[in-house]
């Protein structure tokens, strides 16, 4: 059933009290001065000779941050890592690497070339993630810009124009045009209970017109912003045909497309040149010798004066005694590890749900997208594979690595498939955008985070309802942030209110370090 919205109804909608009216209150934005705080500067007390042994469980970014900072001030750190590699969810895959998905292990077959890599976990760094960026600077990690939105990339939905892919620029230009026309009409309407002064209305109309590239008459009749049908350089440009708004409304994808530069992805995005694991290498250059790989923690006992950790390595059991312990093992795995934590702490660990995420990649035999004016960025599909990412690494070289699917937050569908089914799904989805896709790509890899060994999930989910954190959740969170007996700290983006970002992992570590430092200073004062 579709209901026609009359012009009158529309006007009523936007002038309804509480909406525009509330936002119009003068002087309400004084609190919006940009937050100019700098990255945390830790001023840690040097280690005390009698209690300087540190155990770090998991060589995730937060664990490595702890090792790096505490090593600087004289602590003796040991990092126990269950996997064969450091970095956890920061994982760059290259030729020969093992993708340790339980039940579906793969070895990457990409060509052995510096630009042939795939960031299977973290990929983007917003410029506002200043604590992470401060480490990138300190550790001399070469950064480059990450291209998120690319207007020449495609949008595809079976329901839109018979499934024919259109360029992002066509979708966004026309959608903005039509949205602006609607707004302009409502502002033009004299009957409307005018909340604006003439000057304000004039400014607003200017913004609206320019937002949508409206004509003098405030109507949208297409725009050169979408590029030219022909000409444009040596001859006059010819405007492309307009796509009817009703056609564009066949797809809900505007929700994603118009948000590409908002929120977390609003700031300029960066990435580590050569692969995101360069960040991990920056840390391991300093603390790599402290890591014991293939060392799976199986018990954690907090004592009066320290923490005792039991772990398996090379088929035998080992004990590690430490004065302090920092633990970034995912909460849903920690619940299966023997411990003597207080019950409320265990409840908090059990409360967190594990998130899902799924990515897949192909090696492209040729960089066919560059022949279609695409350099970096994302094509969006309204199908389960959802996204294709074009690499910025290796522009104009023969081959490249394409992201062929990214399902963030709901990767269960592909996770449940066999490897062959997953690949076939991505080929079928991708060839809707690039007709010869199937023949142009090879050597697929898939990364189902829900089944990756020693991870089994993506980001911690604290919130059970869409209406925000409940009081119970807040309490459990703050409880988990506090150390057990002042000796054992849970860390990682799981101990933050903004999981799934590296910045959160770094900040959780910095919080724990500052807390430990403060406790030590109090002890000295006493």
């Amino acid at each position, binding site marked *: 059933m579709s209901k026609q919205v009359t012009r009158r109804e529309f006007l009523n909608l936007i002038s309804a009290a509480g909406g525009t009216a509330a936002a119009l209150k003068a002087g309400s934005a004084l609190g919006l001065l940009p937050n100019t705080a700098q990255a945390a500067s830790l001023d840690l007390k040097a280690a005390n000779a009698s209690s300087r042994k540190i155990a770090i469980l998991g060589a995730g970014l937060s664990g490595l941050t702890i090792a790096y900072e505490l090593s600087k001030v004289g602590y003796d750190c040991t990092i126990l890592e269950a996997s064969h590699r450091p970095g956890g969810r920061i994982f760059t895959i290259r030729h020969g690497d093992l993708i340790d998905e339980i039940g579906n292990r793969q070895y990457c077959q990409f060509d052995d070339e510096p630009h042939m890599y795939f960031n299977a976990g973290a990929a983007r760094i917003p410029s506002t993630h200043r604590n992470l960026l401060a480490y990138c600077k300190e550790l001399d990690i070469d950064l480059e810009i990450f291209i998120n939105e690319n207007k020449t990339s495609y949008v595809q939905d079976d329901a839109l124009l018979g499934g024919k892919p259109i360029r992002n620029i066509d979708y966004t230009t026309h959608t903005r045009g039509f949205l602006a026309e609607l707004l302009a009409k409502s502002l033009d309407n004299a009957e409307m209970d005018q909340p604006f002064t003439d000057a304000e209305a004039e400014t607003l109309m200017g913004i609206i017109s320019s937002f949508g590239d409206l004509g003098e008459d405030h109507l949208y009749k297409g725009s050169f912003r979408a590029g030219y049908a022909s000409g444009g350089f040596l001859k006059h440009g010819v405007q492309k045909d307009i796509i009817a708004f009703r056609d564009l409304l066949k797809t809900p994808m505007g929700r994603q497309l118009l948000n590409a530069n908002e929120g977390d992805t609003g700031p300029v995005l960066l990435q580590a040149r050569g692969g995101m694991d360069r960040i991990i290498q920056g840390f391991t250059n300093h603390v790599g010798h402290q890591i014991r790989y293939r060392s799976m*923690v199986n018990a954690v006992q907090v004592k009066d004066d320290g923490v005792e950790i039991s772990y398996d390595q090379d088929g035998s059991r080992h004990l590690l005694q430490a004065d302090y312990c920092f633990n970034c093992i995912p909460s849903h*795995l920690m619940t299966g590890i*023997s411990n003597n934590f207080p019950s409320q702490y265990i409840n908090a660990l059990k409360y967190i749900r594990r998130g899902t995420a799924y990515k897949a990649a192909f090696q492209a035999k040729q960089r066919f997208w560059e022949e279609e004016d695409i350099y970096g960025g994302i094509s969006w599909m309204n199908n389960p594979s959802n996204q294709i990412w074009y690499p910025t690494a290796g522009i104009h070289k023969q081959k490249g690595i394409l992201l062929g699917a990214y399902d963030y937050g709901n990767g269960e569908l592909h996770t449940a498939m066999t490897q*062959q089914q997953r690949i076939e799904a991505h080929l079928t989805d991708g060839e809707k955008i690039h007709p010869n896709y199937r023949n142009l790509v090879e050597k697929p890899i898939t990364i189902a985070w829900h089944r990756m060994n020693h991870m089994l999930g993506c980001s911690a989910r604290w919130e059970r309802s869409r209406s925000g954190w409940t009081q119970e959740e807040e309490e459990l969170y703050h409880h988990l942030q506090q150390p057990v007996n002042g000796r054992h700290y849970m860390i990682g983006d799981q101990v933050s209110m903004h999981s799934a970002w590296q910045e959160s992992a770094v900040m959780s570590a910095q919080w724990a370090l500052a807390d430990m430092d403060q406790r030590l200073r109090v002890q000295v004062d006493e």
Partner: protein
Amino acid sequence: MLKTFFAFSLCTVFWGSLNAAETAREPINDRYCTTCHGADGRGNEGVQAPRLAGMEPWYLRRQLQNFRADVRGVHPEDREGIAMRPMATKLTDASIDDIIDWVSSWEYVPAEATIDGDPARGRNLYSGCAVCHGGSAEGNESLGAPALAGQNDWYLLTQLKNFMAGYRGAHPDDSYGAQMRTMVNTLRNEAGILNVVSYINTLSR
């Protein structure tokens, strides 16, 4: 290694050419169970994977074979079974033997109770179960019924609900599951399930 070779050759069929000369690879084996089933196989509520330590070798083998043969963990509503099944899909008979040896090296430690039910009511309900599972829920190999005492209670709840709903034990080749499925109806409803498991929590083998 046979398993690796198999996976490798599948890829070759699917993708045509592969470079035979491979760089040194990270070696792998099939002893990956504890990531989900917890330290020393004591179960992990966080991923809903039950205790394996102390499990009877014959029962462990049968379940692995059932998962491998798509007899268990295939019903679309069997969330946890679906998580487990692919973990067994590629196991060889040799790796199942190896896993059984490995599992039997773990100390049996009964799981902690995590649920509140009415064990007194559960006791009555359990009388019908004892015929097969034993008075102390210690299991009975000749009837094919596993020990229940000491198993994670949250897992027992899931299984009884799954048997009742037909998510487990409905496959035509699952004759042991089918026997159990007919028995579960004596518990009648979720309250019955909760109570009987609360009673099983009081038993020790």
